[in-house]
């Protein structure tokens, strides 16, 4: 075969178009990052400034003026605790359905999926009233319960599809050797399922961290998450884009990096395993 150019025109064209579109789509985020390091005056300069001396003042001021750390702590606690509790409830259920398949297993799975499809707004009034009665409005406990419940179906489904892929023969062998159900779960299934547990947890952390409907409606100054802190910047009083950008950057950076690592699990989780 004749030696072909290392870069055929089709490849060059593909590369150019792909990069152009990508930079276009990434532009809003890139702009956010740039603005976070500008002064307020530079942020609204016309024409926009591309070269400037970066400053970290915005990050300091965001913390001083709006107590960023309080909201960040709320976000962290609510998403981590709701994920852990969710895993503790979902894992046994997924395990039971994956290894002790009954006549109703498929129906139960489908029913769980259907609860995820209830629009959150459909439950707004009842949940608000219940939270008020129980004194859970604007508390982290309230948010943790809600986040956990709304993620539970996804957790069961993801864990189920992971557990399902564990070969039954290994369990047979353990059972033959006289392991009881607890030993079977703890010594054999759990180590094999750790990967699935980790990726399920990761996805739920992302979903809870970004959750905006319930946190906007059920929390404010005390238990508010970063999503509510950012929403409070929507009022039109004055232009403080640099500070808004700094706060936004601090709110999304951890989870975007997290997301990069869990993109594959995310696909499986969000499509309930229908696309492999």
């Amino acid at each position, binding site marked *: 075969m004749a030696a072909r150019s290392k870069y055929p025109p089709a490849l060059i064209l593909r590369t150019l178009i792909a990069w152009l579109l990508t930079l276009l789509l990434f532009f809003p985020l890139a702009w956010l990052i740039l603005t976070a390091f500008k002064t307020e005056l530079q942020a609204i300069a016309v024409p*926009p400034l591309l070269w400037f001396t970066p400053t970290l003042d915005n990050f300091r001021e965001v913390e001083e003026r709006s107590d960023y750390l309080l909201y960040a702590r709320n976000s962290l606690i609510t998403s981590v605790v709701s994920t852990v509790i969710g895993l503790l409830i979902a894992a*046994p*259920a997924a395990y039971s359905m994956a290894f002790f398949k009954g006549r109703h297993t498929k129906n139960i799975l489908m029913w769980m999926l259907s609860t995820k499809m209830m629009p959150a707004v459909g439950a707004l009034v009842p949940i608000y009233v219940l939270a008020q009665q129980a004194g859970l409005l604007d508390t982290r406990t309230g948010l943790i319960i809600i986040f956990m419940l709304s993620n539970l179906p996804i957790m069961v489904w993801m864990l189920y599809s992971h557990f399902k892929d564990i070969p039954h023969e290994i369990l047979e062998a353990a059972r033959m050797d006289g392991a009881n159900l607890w030993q079977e779960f703890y010594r054999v299934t759990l180590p094999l399922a750790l990967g699935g547990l980790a990726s399920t947890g990761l996805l739920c952390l992302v979903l809870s961290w970004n959750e*905006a409907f319930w946190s906007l409606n059920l929390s404010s100054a005390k238990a508010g998450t*970063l999503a509510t802190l950012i929403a409070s910047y929507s009022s039109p009083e004055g232009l403080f*884009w640099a500070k808004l950008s700094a706060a936004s950057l601090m*709110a999304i950076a951890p989870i975007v990096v997290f997301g990069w690592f869990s993109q594959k699990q995310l696909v499986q989780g969000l499509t309930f395993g229908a*696309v492999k």
Partner: protein
Amino acid sequence: MCRVSARCADTFLYALPVSEPLPMNRLLPRLLLTPAVATLLLWMLVPLVMSVYFSVIRYNLMQPEQTGFIGFENFEYFLTDPSFSVAVLNTIWLLGSVIVITVVMGAALALLIDEAFPGRAVVRLLLISPFFVMPTVNALLWKHMMMHPIYGALAQVWIFFGATPLEWLSDFPLGSIVIMVAWQWLPFATLIFMTALQSMNREQLEAARMDGATYLQQLRYLYIPHLGRSIAVVVMIEMIFLLSIFAEIFTTTGGGPGDASTNVAFLIFKQALLNFDAGVASAGALFAVLLANIAAAFLIRLVGRNLDT
């Protein structure tokens, strides 16, 4: 066909008899299942029953002295409110435009980066990033830094081309929301399509190319049929999540101007927390649940068919 045989192998594997559970092990699986089933049952039934109850009584938080059964008055009020038909139309527009934009552009992007080129890994990471941005940040980023009529980046582009910058949020409120939501969900569609393309039958493609199939023919007979199922999945999942878009509207237009960017979810929110009318809001909520169930029925059938149990 590779896909068919893979699925058959799958079915075959799971059809293998699992050994009969021992009698002492029969109770435990149920115990393990109970907490999840019980909590989800409560999560589903309690709000539903309460909504049904609230929707047939007079229940306004501002007029606590007025109580009592009023039949279908709340439903009548919600459904005949002039905002209602606007909100239903807006919901459908929002959903439809975002789905069309994300599916078409997502498929194009996925096809574009399906084959290796320099920097593909970086492109992938940059492309999926918007999906992990929380909705409130997304909304404010677009409202202030992109769409602001004086200082926004889009205004600069308009000025650069000698045009008058647009008042995005007041002149095109629904369109602006569509742009924000589509920007967020395009990575999702792209990601799903990329994953699906990886399972394409490479030999078949190679054979088609050898036989001189044009790119359009390859698209028509190989790529698009292969993407069929994932397109259905993307459409259904987006339907579920986008039926109740809330944070983007809440943080930017507040449903306005007028009702121009109010969807059903936001209308219910307004009734409940701005008008304090829990009764009317509950009637609306039941309507939203009905809408979602119609959508869900399709998804359940779709996913159920693909579930190899």
